[in-house]
């Protein structure tokens, strides 16, 4: 069987490593079903799917629903028509994702009025956007934040405005609204025909496996407790608060795979857990991810004092809820959607900004005293006029991995064996990340009523360009086949209850913190403002694609703009 030839020789690595398809890209037309499944889901999941459903089933109706690829790619097509005169504005925020809206939220919070947020898509949120149908709201991207450990900082402030942060307990730890904390059952994992509670696969674990898990957890707890001479946590949220002491930043020089080898972690289950964390939080594999970033995932969200933290905050629409809250603070009259900013020309005392209004089909021009560019570096390189000619050295250091998210609407949840349906449902043997249940956090949803499952798939290959091509080459029916083949072996009668599938592709979903990136020069340089009137905000400046990073840099950029305009307002970052 040719499958065997595809599989790498296993050296104690997880099966996820098996067969890397990006090296031989094919167009979807050439792919047989089995090849498609092996290429995207991995050998084990493909085998399970092929064993399970030999007979044909009716395809689930649906579509690929992203359009940003098309609008965004206008940027590449060379010079666009320019408007000769236009609007004056004190602050222009370019980008209506989490960082741009955080900037807008900060400006509005200072009582500042003369600003505008431009978003190229027809919907706000970027990778935190959400959707809604007759069943429920659902996420299209980021779908939770870990409950902050402290009540200070911009994210707790936002949560306070939402009524989610209800106060603090005797020890000063924040208390969150119960219905927003992720309800139990929180996670389950599918392995060889049955679901099990939790993310770590405990069933069949040997005493050595469990001993290694305990050793790993203890190590992470110690790193979580670690503080430098100035009292800063070694691993904190957001990354800007972390200690820069080389004792810990040295971890950024190696990959987490190397770190696990060095620390003699060999249990396949533990390696799987870490690998899953890498794919889930950063969209890449353990051999590509900085050990510092991977440790951060485990150590930043706990104090390291042995106490259980509050877990995660989530809503049916995922982080779309945070986006809505900030958009409300900004006000719809200060938001321009479908507005593609394609040129920013910084001058001594202002910026000239050219945009294309996709609704009116007409060019727009802004004269802004301050501009906050809240988009990723790869777009900045094309939009900021002087950078087109002489790009700064740091630009090429920023790499982004593609993701695909699918929302599957179900008439009712199908049956499954073992532990019952949880919020996060993970398939041990698949390269997908599994799915979250949008109605899990809804007070209105009935336990057996209709629901929406959000399925996540990161394209983790090292060559991000080839991975983007791969994501784009798959058609709707390919994705339909992939999603259903991934889920059918773990759910009886799924095909019969599936009503609609919608797929969204994100070409540059997540910054990849490869070794050396987070504590390297490129990221530090990219955080600097250009002159006195062009400031930057985005998760890529934090090196990790997380809401807290977006929010931090958005607020920071807004405060810089306010300071330049002579607006004095106590910092929210203190």
């Amino acid at each position, binding site marked *: 069987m040719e499958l065997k030839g595809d599989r790498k020789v296993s050296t104690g690595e997880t099966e996820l490593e098996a067969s890397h398809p990006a090296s031989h890209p094919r167009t979807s037309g050439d792919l047989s079903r089995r090849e498609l499944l092996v290429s995207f889901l991995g050998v084990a999941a493909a085998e399970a799917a092929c064993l399970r459903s030999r007979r044909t089933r009716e395809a689930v109706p649906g579509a690929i629903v992203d359009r940003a690829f098309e609008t965004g790619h206008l940027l590449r097509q060379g010079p666009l028509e320019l408007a000769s005169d236009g609007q004056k504005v004190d602050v222009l925020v370019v980008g209506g994702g989490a960082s741009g809206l955080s900037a807008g939220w900060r400006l509005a919070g200072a009582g500042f009025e003369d600003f505008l947020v431009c978003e190229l898509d027809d919907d706000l949120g970027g990778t935190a956007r959400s959707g809604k149908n007759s069943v429920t709201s659902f996420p299209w991207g980021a779908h939770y934040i870990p409950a902050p450990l402290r009540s200070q900082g911009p994210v707790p402030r936002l949560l306070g405005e939402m009524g989610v942060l209800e106060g603090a307990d005797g020890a000063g730890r924040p208390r969150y609204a*119960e*219905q927003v*904390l*992720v*309800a*139990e*059952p*929180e996670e389950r994992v599918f392995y060889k025909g049955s679901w099990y509670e939790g993310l770590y696969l405990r069933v069949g674990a040997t005493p050595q496996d469990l001993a290694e898990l305990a050793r790993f957890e203890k190590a992470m707890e110690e790193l979580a407790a670690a503080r430098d001479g100035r009292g800063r946590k070694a691993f904190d949220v957001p990354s800007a608060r972390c200690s820069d002491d080389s004792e810990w930043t040295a971890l950024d020089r190696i990959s987490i795979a190397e770190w696990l080898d060095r620390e003699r972690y060999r249990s396949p289950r533990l390696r799987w857990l870490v690998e899953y964390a890498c794919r889930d939080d950063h969209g890449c594999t353990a051999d590509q991810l900085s050990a510092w970033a991977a440790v951060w995932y485990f150590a930043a969200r706990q104090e390291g004092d042995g106490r259980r933290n*509050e*877990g995660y905050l989530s809503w049916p629409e995922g982080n779309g809820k945070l986006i809505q809250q900030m958009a409300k603070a900004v006000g719809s009259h200060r938001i321009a959607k479908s507005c593609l900013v394609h040129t920013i020309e910084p001058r001594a005392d202002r910026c000239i900004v050219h945009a294309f209004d996709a609704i009116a089909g007409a060019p727009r021009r802004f004269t802004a005293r301050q501009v906050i560019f809240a988009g990723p570096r790869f777009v900045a390189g094309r939009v900021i006029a002087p950078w087109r000619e002489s790009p700064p050295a740091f630009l090429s250091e920023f790499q982004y991995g593609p993701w695909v998210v699918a929302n599957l609407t179900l008439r009712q949840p199908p049956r499954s*064996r073992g532990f*019952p349906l949880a919020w996060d449902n993970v398939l041990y043997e698949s390269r997908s990340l599994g799915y979250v249940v949008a109605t899990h956090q809804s*007070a*209105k949803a*009935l*336990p*057996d009523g209709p629901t929406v499952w959000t399925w996540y798939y990161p394209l983790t290959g090292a060559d991000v360009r080839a991975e983007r091509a791969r994501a784009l080459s798959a058609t709707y029916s390919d994705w339909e086949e992939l999603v259903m083949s991934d889920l059918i072996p773990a759910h009886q009668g799924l095909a019969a209850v599936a009503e609609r599938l919608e797929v969204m592709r994100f070409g540059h979903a997540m910054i990849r913190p490869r070794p050396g990136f987070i504590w390297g020069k490129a990221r530090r340089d990219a955080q600097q403002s250009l002159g006195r009137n062009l400031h930057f905000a985005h998760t890529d400046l934090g090196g990790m694609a997380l809401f807290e990073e977006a929010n931090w840099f958005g607020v920071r950029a807004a405060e810089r703009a306010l300071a330049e305009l002579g607006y004095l307002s106590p910092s929210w970052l203190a």
Partner: protein
Amino acid sequence: MRRPLLFITVFAIATCGLVYELVVGTLASYLLGDSVFQFSTVIGVYLFALGIGSFVSRYIESGVAARFVDAELAVALIGGASAPILFLTFTRSGPFHFALYATVVAVGTLVGLEIPLLLRILKDRLRFKDLVSQVLTFDYLGALLASLLFPIVLVPRLGLVRTSLAFGLLNALVGLWSTWLLKTEMTSVRPLRVRAFAVAGILLAAFASGDRLTQYYEEQIYADEVVHAESSAYQRIAVTRGRRGFALFLNGSLQFASADEYRYHEALVHPAMIRARSIARVLILGGGDGLAAREVLRYAEVKSITLVDIDPAITALAGKVGELAELNRNSLRDPRMRVVNEDAMRFLAEGDERFDVAIADFPDPNNFSLGKLYTTHFYRLLQRRLAEDGIAVIQSTSPLFARRAFWCVDATLRAAGFWTEPYHAHVPSFGEWGYILAARGAREPFRELPLGLRFLTETTLATLFEFPADMSRIDAEVNRLNNQVLVRYYEDEWKRWN
């Protein structure tokens, strides 16, 4: 052909034979009760059937070895499928006694065939005295092994369904193996092997779904005759009738038995009703059987009852089935009654009408969906819907069987800001049962008990609030949506009693 291998065959088929007999005997006592009678008749009929088999064996003239394999495959199929098929017959109200003894006779006859046929196959290879001695020795050894394995390993580990399937499978494999072992005695082995694979395949497939089968059956097993059964969108509903009246089961767990439900419902409803200042507006959450409502309707001051039960099938049943409507005295058709088929959490979250008395009569928190209805979040929603001096009562499982679960409900109510007062009553069908009163502040009895009660009296009421040492308060975590500790407590504790 090597003799030791053949004796292993004898040993294996003897083990299988006795396992079938034990499976059927256990199943009969399990389903029909009266185990002395069931075991006596099953064993008697089985031994008699062995005799039939021995008798019939003389009519097999040719192809003895092939018929031996056939007999093994037939017994593998019938014996292996015996438990699932008998369960199925029982739950579908088929002719169970007939199926039971037909299985015993069939298995006995086939097993009875095996030894005589084997003796004939071996007769030329051994001296008669050695043959009889060795074959019977292994036969009885196999029986000993089966009788020890069955109660100690098989039933506790595999359960009846999978035990019978597993031994059927073993039997089929022995049959298959015999086609090699007895090859020299047979003219064509291929059809036999095809049959053997088919039988093994069927049993293997059934074994793979054994978990689901068992779960399904066990939820359908009732001590009494089933008079009504249906599956609603939310649960499997069964009403049974026996000598002591009738009973309602949801997903196989008892909701009430008509013989003593008055104890449960009087204790549930009246301590809260007599403590409330006003009792004009009463809310019942769960309780679609209408029995709590019957108790509420004893008070003339009650102006409206809102009964929220997620399952329309239950409320329809309670109004429709004669015995039930009689038992709840047509409470669901009372003009003051409003039935809302809605999830209780959703009902509380979405409305803002306030109630003087709220009665939470949910099934025990044995899964996460039910566990939600016992969280601080739920109780905060409940408090919002309670009048300023209103009072609620929560059925809170058994403080004896699930002590930590009971006190967990109390701790949860307190964490949600309620004053609480726990109490308990003895309900023979359930055992010691617990309830918790919850209000914004302490509440003393305000009115007298209504007339016509069978269980509660003014003088004994106070004793319900005393907790003996083995049910007294213990520490428990607060049940929240994001920990659902109650479901875990409940599972752990009930496991010890079942």
